[in-house]
């Protein structure tokens, strides 16, 4: 979903160097440190926003999902174990909150300019930008579990192990979801490549 520019651009890709900082922040949060919580909130806000928006496809849900996610982080920071990446833990919470929000909101897709079904336009008449827009709409029409795999792979640069931890599923499921997502997008991608 493309939205008007109101803030300076932020990086969509997680900064892996922040892993130690995140772990320290969670330790401080577990001791009730509000300043550490605010810093973590600011560090994760945009990444969570993009992730939740892509998983749900519904912008009106996203801010609530982020706050529900971060409320869990605040309350359960003591349960975080340093063995796993903090980002994996937080994104896992956000993913589950996103699915719950979708369930509450009704799982059927709400057509918007960003998520409406593909127009039955003949591929010959589409230029490159049209095809790219069609691909974005096709991704938005994937099931949320598949969208999450695509989002975490291409936007958050997560490994398949990390994705499996976030989505709480086996690695094989991650690979099969990616396979299925690519299969659905293949005709459009072939158009884009001129195959």
């Amino acid at each position, binding site marked *: 979903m493309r939205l008007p520019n109101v803030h*300076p651009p932020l990086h969509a890709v997680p900064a892996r160097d922040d892993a130690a900082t995140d772990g320290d922040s969670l330790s401080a949060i577990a001791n009730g440190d509000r300043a550490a919580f605010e810093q973590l*909130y600011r560090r994760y806000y945009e990444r969570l926003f993009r992730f939740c928006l892509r998983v749900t496809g519904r912008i009106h849900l996203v801010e609530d999902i982020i706050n529900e996610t971060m409320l869990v982080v605040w309350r359960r920071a003591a349960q975080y174990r340093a063995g796993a990446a903090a980002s994996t833990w937080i994104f896992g919470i956000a993913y589950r909150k996103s699915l719950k929000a979708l369930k509450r909101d009704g799982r059927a897709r709400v057509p918007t300019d960003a998520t409406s079904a593909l127009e039955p336009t003949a591929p010959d008449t589409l230029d490159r930008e049209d095809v790219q827009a069609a691909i974005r709409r096709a991704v938005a029409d994937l099931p949320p579990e598949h969208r999450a795999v695509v989002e975490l792979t*291409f936007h958050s640069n997560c*490994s*398949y192990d990390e994705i499996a931890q976030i989505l709480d599923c086996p690695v094989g499921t991650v690979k099969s979801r990616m396979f299925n997502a690519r299969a659905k997008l293949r005709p459009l991608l072939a158009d884009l*490549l001129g195959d």
Partner: protein
Amino acid sequence: MNAFDDRQAIRELLPWYENGTLPEREREAVRALLATDLEANRQRRELRALREAIVDDTTLATDMAVNLRALQTRLDAPVGAKPNRLRWFACAAALLLALGGSTFFAGLRVGTYHTLSTPAATPLVPADFELIRVDVARNVDATLLLSLAGDPQARVLLGPSEHGVATLVVPRDHAAVVMARLNRDPRLRFVAPVPR
């Protein structure tokens, strides 16, 4: 696993080869496949096109500060407090209590009631007493019936009704004597024990 399956399994790693997160051993396998396999190269081009199409650097129309302030008001709420659920639970409990209470007290208001095996019109009688049904003539009332029974412990339980039916209660030990006495009187048309 044959060579085709091997190649297919390696092609499935391409998304993570492209985002640079594959372990070294798998990265080498993908690199070797790309050197020889046209299909893997085609899929790699597809993935790059996909990434280019969906990676979106557009900034977001959202006010983080406002959302953070909204969340901060909730941080001190007691953990696990779910007022809505508790309210629903309390309402359900109150409703159940009211229904149960009204059913219970309705029973008390009505008074004694009986199961289907005990006729509602028949008061409970101790086990060591016998019920005797008597059909009487029109001019026999309860007082006369008791005098005809001739037993100080006998009681008229029901009747005589407009159809001349009455029920006596007598101690079981005296029942045979009382029935014999009643059977001798011509004003009583029928005397018999009531099965219990």
